């Protein structure tokens, strides 16, 4: 199990756990990012500060600092 922040581009992952600041977790929940969900890392920005993540059939850009709370496998 790793955090999504360590995930590689063009790989699929399954979320095991979402934790972190309550505000952030709540927003993840609203967007359908919770345990059991599959996602795919499409791209990372040049300094790897922003990730493009495909989930539930659409694409989100997420700041990588938030991704350390998402445990995936």
């Amino acid at each position, binding site marked *: 199990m790793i955090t999504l922040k360590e995930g590689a581009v063009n790989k699929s992952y399954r979320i095991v756990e*979402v934790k972190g600041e*309550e*505000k*952030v*977790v*709540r*927003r*993840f*929940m*609203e*967007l*359908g990012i*919770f*345990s*059991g969900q599959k996602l795919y890392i*499409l*791209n990372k*920005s*040049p*300094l*790897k*500060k*922003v990730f*493009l993540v*495909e989930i*539930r*059939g*659409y*694409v*989100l*850009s*997420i*700041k990588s*600092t*938030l991704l350390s709370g998402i445990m995936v496998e």
Partner: protein
Amino acid sequence: MEEILLVGNPNAGKTTFFNSLTRANEHVGNWHGVTVEEKKKEFSLNGEKFTLVDTPGIYSLTPLSFEEEVSCKIVLESKLKVINICDLNNLQRNLYLTLCLIEAGKEVCVVINEIDRRQKYKVNREKLEALLGVKVLMLNAEKNIDEIKNLDFFNKKTPNYLKKVDFSCILPQFSNFDDKIYLCVKAFERDKSFFIRQNFKEEDIEQIFSKLPENSMEIIAKARYEFLDEVIEKACVKNDFVYGKSKLDKILLNKYLAFPCFLVILAIIFYLTFFSLGALLSDALSSLLSLITTPISNFLLGHLGDSFVYHLFNDAIFGGVATVLSFLPQVVLLFFFLSVLEDSGYLSRVAFIFEDILGKVGLSGKSVYTLLMGFGCSTTAIMTARNMDNKNSKIKTALVCPYMSCSAKIPIYAVVGGAFFGANNIFVIIGLYLLGVVVAITISKLLDMTVLKSNNQTFILEFPPYRHMSLKRTGKVLLENSKHFLVKVGSIMISMNVIVFLLSSFSFSFSYCPDGTGSMLQTIGKFLAPIFAPLGFDNWAVVSALLAGLVAKEVVVSSIAMFNGIDSSATRLISESLLLPTSVVYFSSNASVLSFLVFSLLYVPCIASVSMLIQEVGKKWTIVGVIIELVTAYVVSFIVFNIAFAIEIFGWTFVLILLAFVFILLSLIFIYRFIKRKKCPFNCKNCQKKCKK
């Protein structure tokens, strides 16, 4: 008149729908002095009149930011009916909000916006309506909203997914309330502000929350999404493509190709806006204008002679109008390209590429467009800053934009620099451009660390797909921005032009001085000259030229020509005159020339840009911006002058040794601090510098 709330996810097409449905009577209300705008407009439907209230976009009824708080509050506290606009391509996520509205017992009409040609879902409207228990309409918010005639509001509370959730842990807490289940839902969402609004005591809330299972938010979100999965399966046919994913991104967002692609696209835009097409249109407009103004000027000259009134009209007013109009093609083209970039979805990708680099200095990825356009013209570029997502990065971008050396400064570099540096002038010019960028980055970073901190609210953004642009929308954007520019910015520019004209042609005793000698501008120039002595040019004529340069940077060169008594079109003669000690405008050393160029680069670019700043970021920040511009110009010129002067007197080696010394000293301090920080053996969470452990 009945009010109806317009609620939806960010980017679902609320505002588009709002504009399509209501055409006039804009009413903008401010909340709490923060620029959270809640727009109200009237519309009539089937002979009845309603007021539509647009609200900031939300994902659920649990607010995270202040803007969301505004929306949630109106939704939950008012009894108003709700139009819930959903984007067909993100239907599932959008319906999540719908479920929240249904749970809250609102009377809802779901409007599904099918704006894209390529659609992710095919919806069976009747089935969806039956499954959700609310009215469902399908329409294209931009082109065809006829369906809205069937507008109806109800809430049958059909969805029963909440029955599957085990609320037993906190249900007894709410036994005295009517709406037990909804309170349980809100508790599971840990929505503290909701309970505070319901007059619960702080400790009661804490006590209720402590009984919740740890993953309560996940439980409730999962319940909703599972229900939505069912709904989508029963009522929709799903296409397999991923919304926002494109093969084009393999190239345009490629690790190595992204930056070159962007630069090529930008170079084309830049060339078209400021040179070929833009310049052509500018010329056409000004010759068109002179068709009208020349007869009037000639009439005035014929009847009143070479008098003050003639000059007021010819120089100040018509000149001002001509300046405003010469900007117009640029404004139109800049916004045309911006709206193409934005609509096509490329701007979001540019923002993505630049986010981490610009984020470091407190700007946002989207600032790139504004900043790079600043190399063309600060005034019009500042206007594009309104496109930014949050207020602070908008202000920072706008304030920093003038440091990008605009094209109007090139004549100064060419004429003044050319006189002293000859063939080496090209390196001076490159150096000036780089200096501008460095100063911009530094100032942005400083603002970011002090008064204009970046707020990280936009940490998760939806990534849009590539789209065809809509001509109608682009036309609207262009029309609005041109109107805004001509009316608001243009009027300030012209009046400022008149003021400077009056200053330069009247003395303090209000006698008319046609050639500028003895005028207020000159008196002020003479008065201010000693202040510039530390910068190497206490020549009053240079200072007056800089003052006149506030109108526009082109005026600096023409004022110098005027003072030296040379026709302003003969640039070579101007350059030569600067070298003659007998001239009025004369620089004694290369150091003072350099300092003059740096000052020209960094001080207030022009009145037009200031009036634009007032429009875009307000008076307060404009004043701050102007002060920063003057202070940086002074300080940086001072440093440049003294270093250059030292080089002239003591030679390169001495100064290099001195600089090396300072550099070594600074790095020693840095290394010392670095080692000190490393020494701390404790890995505390919020490590403060003064660790006492």
